[in-house]
């Protein structure tokens, strides 16, 4: 059996009086490429934040790499790439190289400074996303798509085993979205990095992923991509409460 990286049992969460997540249970195994689908306000970002330890669940249990999330010490195993729009101040005076190097912070631990091998790791991560030529540019000078690649490199540099991406292609033009996803597939297949991708681009990702989870307060479906393809249009609409376009 493949190793389970995320185990969620009966998880619920509410903000003040609004129930956001209800009785969520699902697991993600090593090597999966999971697309997390759901309409706006379905709780996708909240679920990610709980997995990342930014929010605490009200009830339920969450295990990361087999350990309870609250005592999980290896956050560097989980890489995170957020939506570009809220990620950072684009006037920040930092070079691409400095940004990627900052991805090593947790791995190095407190009081340790990055040494010479850090530079090599940074270069390697930048090569993996095809951005090594930009390493001395200021991050604010790059286009949205290039910035997202740099943020992936920042996540890769600590050699994560799981990469969580929250709508990483928002604000990136269509052509670049294709090559962006191709890069994720490559990382998944060649380096064996497990992927959780929150997205709206169902059409673009559908032939690249292995698993699908449909979320709207609760998990309506979680399984292999080919099982997802057999779900009827009516069922999808019932889960989401409005029309959904399904692509094969």
């Amino acid at each position, binding site marked *: 059996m493949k190793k389970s990286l995320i185990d969620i049992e009966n998880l619920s969460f509410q903000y003040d009086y609004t129930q956001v997540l209800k009785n969520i249970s699902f697991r993600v195994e090593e090597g999966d490429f999971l697309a997390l689908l759901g309409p706006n306000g379905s709780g996708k970002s909240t679920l990610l934040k709980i997995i990342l330890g930014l929010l605490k669940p009200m009830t339920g249990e969450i295990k990361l790499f087999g350990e309870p999330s609250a005592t999980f010490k290896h956050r560097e195993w989980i890489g995170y790439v957020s939506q570009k729009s809220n990620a950072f101040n684009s006037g920040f*005076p930092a070079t691409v190289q400095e940004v990627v190097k900052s991805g090593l912070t947790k791995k190095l631990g407190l009081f340790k400074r990055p040494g010479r091998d850090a530079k090599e790791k940074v270069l390697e991560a930048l090569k993996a996303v095809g951005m090594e030529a930009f390493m001395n540019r200021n991050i604010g000078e790059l286009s949205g798509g290039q910035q997202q690649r740099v943020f992936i490199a920042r996540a890769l540099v600590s050699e994560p085993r799981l990469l969580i991406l929250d709508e990483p292609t928002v604000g990136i033009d269509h052509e670049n979205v294709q090559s962006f996803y191709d890069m994720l597939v490559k990382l998944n297949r060649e380096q064996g990095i497990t992927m959780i991708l929150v997205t709206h681009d169902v059409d673009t990702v559908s032939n690249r992923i292995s698993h699908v989870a449909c979320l709207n307060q609760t998990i309506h479906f979680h399984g292999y991509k080919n099982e997802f393809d057999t779900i009827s249009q009516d069922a999808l609409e019932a889960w989401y409460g409005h029309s959904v376009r399904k692509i094969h």
Partner: protein
Amino acid sequence: MIEAIFNYEFLQNAFFSGILIGILAPLLGVFIVVRRLSLIADALSHVTLAGIAGSLYLSQSVPALAMLNPIYLGILASVSGSILIERLRRLYKHYEELAIPIIMSGGIGISAIFISLASGFSTDLMSYLFGSVSAVSRQDLWVVVGIAVVVIIFLLLFFKELFVLSFDEEYAKASGLPARWIHLLFMIVTALVIAASMRIVGILLVSSLMTLPVAAAMRLAKGFKQTIIYSIVFGEAAVLIGLVSAFYLDLAPGGTIVVTSIFILLLVILAKKVVFKMAAKQEEVAQ
């Protein structure tokens, strides 16, 4: 002037403190500016004033405390202010900036009360407001040295964490860094530097020494490390030129240092514009 420094202890105190502050204030200032906390520095300096005014009043009314150096109560007020600001920011999560006017007006209000209790402005108080070349004591210098050591150790230990926190707070938290603690320590260190700087630049102008050199540096630098280096160079230049001119023209150094910083900033903005225009022209010629 150099001869005078060898001869007069008060000048040595002012210059050595000035050199240290010229490094410390812009160094922390880079983090303050990129994190958009410039106004917090201003609020903290006004809280420091409350401590100074309180101490001056105590020295006047309690004979046993006549020799109390106001810098200690200043530091105490500044550090408590920084912790209070953090408390308030957490309390008003959706209105974080509210903490600034609350703390700032609190600081000025308390200062006003102590100043009137101590029956108005004295020359001593003026030297705290706008800085002084002659009023820095040996004890003040040692306090500045102590604070410099604390700040340097703090930055050596937490530089990379502070960078991540400044660049992308959510990412820092998601990677499991103790973001809250590092931020609180940073605020306390900032409070210390503000208290240390006030002897030279004065309470009302401390925040400008933390922000103006950084503003100039950001126009020129590539990357974060370069921004820090340029900021320190500009900050140090402003302090030294400001102190020397304050000494010769008999002016408050806070004024001369800040005016020099503004001058450097304008020069940098202008120089960059000229270089841009020249580059554009060269391109035109090449085409």
